[in-house]
């Protein structure tokens, strides 16, 4: 593989080699070094509310069954039969007590345990030949849940999820914990765009600068009242932990006035007051900022907006959407976009919030449509030879000497954690790309091959490490899969 250190060096200066948005070598590195070790969102607990409920989600080419077993535990299992590798679940969602491989009939409980192995005695000589007891579908190497958001990592030694989220948890709560019972998700809508996955993540992380141009049409038709140029830049960008996002400046008033301004009904406001910390409430009520879009490294994003959804009314109504930019290749991304809503909201609110989401974002959303047009065009052009000569200037907010155009807000001005600034900048996009560059420099963790059904075969050498990382964990011994 070509040495990419010059690329990473440029990225760290805020100068972005344009070809990283359509480059197979870069994508291969991302697969090997980034998506093999980062925490990745796969589902929300509300998608599998009952015992036996499952959804199937991918991490690039790897298919995982996310299920709730009979004891109510959330499981994430590699969707591949231990025998000949067939997918044991070929539906996207459903409810099942067992998954059975259609090839040779091995079957597994919804917690992953093998329960059926046809002709175990005749074909394998029973336990002596294939030790069935305690064998399970391969669990995701790491699994973590925050506010019902289910993440997995292919790295068995991933840092704890909450450490990875860090101060971004403060912001996650606005989207996912508006009341004690949290959110429920619907969807996802899924569609494929001919754009590199990083562009969407960067856009949602901090691109306030595009809204006055890209999204003029939605203001002109009366759908949205906010993104006028002079309005948008009064908001902040914040970066905290491994995620960051943008806010809108709210009009004068107290906490309740401001939450009403974006369309929250009083009963929801009351619950928010009981749910969020004083610091979280102060960002809105004291500092006057309302969270908007955000991204969590590497490929999860959020959006919170408040359009007009009914004819002849000035009322707006907020919606929340969660999405994932699932890489397909260097120039194609599958977008998964969910509608999220406070589980304790009224049915009427849920219906109108859903309407607001459909009109604005997702596969048919009127904001979204114009974004993707840009991203496809950018990706196309990034494939060419001229793009290899062009360093895109991603230094917005910085003077040439590295000093800030605008200084960060002080704790007196802004109550939330992280680094926060008013106005247009690309601090957050740079933060995402810094993490991206760090990953691309660190080889994939050595991972042991897993021998299933036998004890006597010795642990295999590292299977997929192309280089030995100094910090790579020692090869994990062959998994004996004692039942968890």
């Amino acid at each position, binding site marked *: 593989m070509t040495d990419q250190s010059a690329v990473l060096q440029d990225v760290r200066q805020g100068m972005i080699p344009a070809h990283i948005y359509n480059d197979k070598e870069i994508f291969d590195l991302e697969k090997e070094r980034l998506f093999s070790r980062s925490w990745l969102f796969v589902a929300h607990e509300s998608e599998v509310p009952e015992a036996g409920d499952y959804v199937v989600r991918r991490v690039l080419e790897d298919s995982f069954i996310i299920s709730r077993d009979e004891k109510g535990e959330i499981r994430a299992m590699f969707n591949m039969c231990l025998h000949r590798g067939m997918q044991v679940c070929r539906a996207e969602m459903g409810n099942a007590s067992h998954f059975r491989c259609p090839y040779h009939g091995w079957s597994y409980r919804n917690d992953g345990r093998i329960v059926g192995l046809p002709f175990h005695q005749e074909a394998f000589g029973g336990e002596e030949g294939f030790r069935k007891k305690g064998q399970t579908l391969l669990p995701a190497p790491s699994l973590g849940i925050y506010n019902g958001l289910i993440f997995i990592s292919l790295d068995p030694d991933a840092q704890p999820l909450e450490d990875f989220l860090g101060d971004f948890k403060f912001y996650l709560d606005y989207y996912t914990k508006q009341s004690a019972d949290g959110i429920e998700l619907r969807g*996802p809508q899924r569609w494929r765009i001919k754009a590199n996955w990083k562009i969407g993540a960067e856009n949602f992380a901090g691109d306030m600068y595009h809204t006055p141009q890209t999204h003029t049409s939605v203001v002109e038709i009366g759908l949205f009242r906010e993104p006028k140029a002079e309005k948008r830049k009064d908001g902040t960008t914040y970066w905290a932990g491994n995620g960051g996002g943008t806010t809108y400046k709210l009009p004068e008033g107290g906490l309740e006035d401001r939450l009403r301004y974006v369309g929250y009904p009083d009963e929801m406001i009351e619950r928010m007051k009981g749910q969020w910390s004083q610091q979280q409430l102060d960002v809105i009520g004291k500092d006057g900022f309302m969270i908007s879009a955000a991204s969590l490294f590497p490929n999860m994003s959020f959006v919170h907006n408040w359009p007009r959804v009914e004819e002849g009314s000035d009322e707006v109504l907020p919606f929340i959407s969660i999405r994932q930019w699932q890489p397909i290749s260097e120039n194609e991304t599958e977008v998964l976009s969910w509608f999220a809503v406070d589980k304790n909201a009224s049915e009427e609110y849920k219906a109108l919030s859903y309407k607001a989401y459909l009109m604005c974002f997702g596969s048919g959303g009127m904001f979204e449509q114009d974004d993707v047009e840009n991203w496809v065009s950018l990706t196309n052009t990034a494939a060419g030879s001229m793009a290899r000569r062009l360093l895109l200037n991603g230094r917005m907010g910085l003077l040439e000497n590295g000093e800030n155009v605008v200084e960060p807000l002080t704790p007196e001005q802004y109550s939330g954690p992280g680094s926060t600034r008013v106005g247009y900048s690309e601090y957050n996009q740079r933060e995402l790309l810094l993490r991206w560059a760090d990953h691309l420099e660190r080889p994939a963790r050595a991972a042991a091959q897993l021998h299933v059904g036998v004890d006597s075969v010795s642990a295999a050498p590292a299977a997929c490490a192309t280089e030995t990382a100094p910090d790579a964990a020692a090869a994990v011994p062959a998994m004996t899969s004692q039942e968890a």
Partner: protein
Amino acid sequence: MTATPVNGMTLSEQSVLGAHAPRTQRTGQSLPFNDELHLQAHRWLVDEAYLLDAQDYDEWLARVADDVHYLMPVRVTTALGAGYSTSPGMAHLDENKYSLSRRVARFATEHAWTEDPPSRLRHYVTNVRTFRTEKADEIVAESAVLLFRSRGDVGEAATVSAGREDLLRRTGTGWELARRTIMLDESVIRMQNLAIFL
């Protein structure tokens, strides 16, 4: 294949945004192809396809009833016998006249970049079956539609295949669309967005 009622309810009625949707359902066998009602419905669908291809959206909207419910559910792949193949509570498009009118109004601005330059569109409409309903002035029309969409001068064109079930209502000035349920044939759409109508 299309919006067959489940538990006596159309998908339109099951939508949380479908309260206003006309409830009229088909009765009896499909009409013969030389039936006058069938001919009128077929003509309406073909004329509509021409309007959509030409992106003459004002004219199209004029043929849409004020109480329209325009629904495109999210299809999901489920096991045989699961009893559903659409994502519960989620759709790609779940529209009333107001939200359709906002979409049309957006195209008329100078800033709807996703259609500037405009896509080249071709709606292929076939397999038309029509049915009487319990109302004399309303008929159900089923059709298959294949949409070809070409954007820009490079890149692959996108196609979308779907089945539709429409409720057409006769008014003083002709037929209008009172309900449409669009069942896509893919669960992952291979098109950059749905800035089009099916």
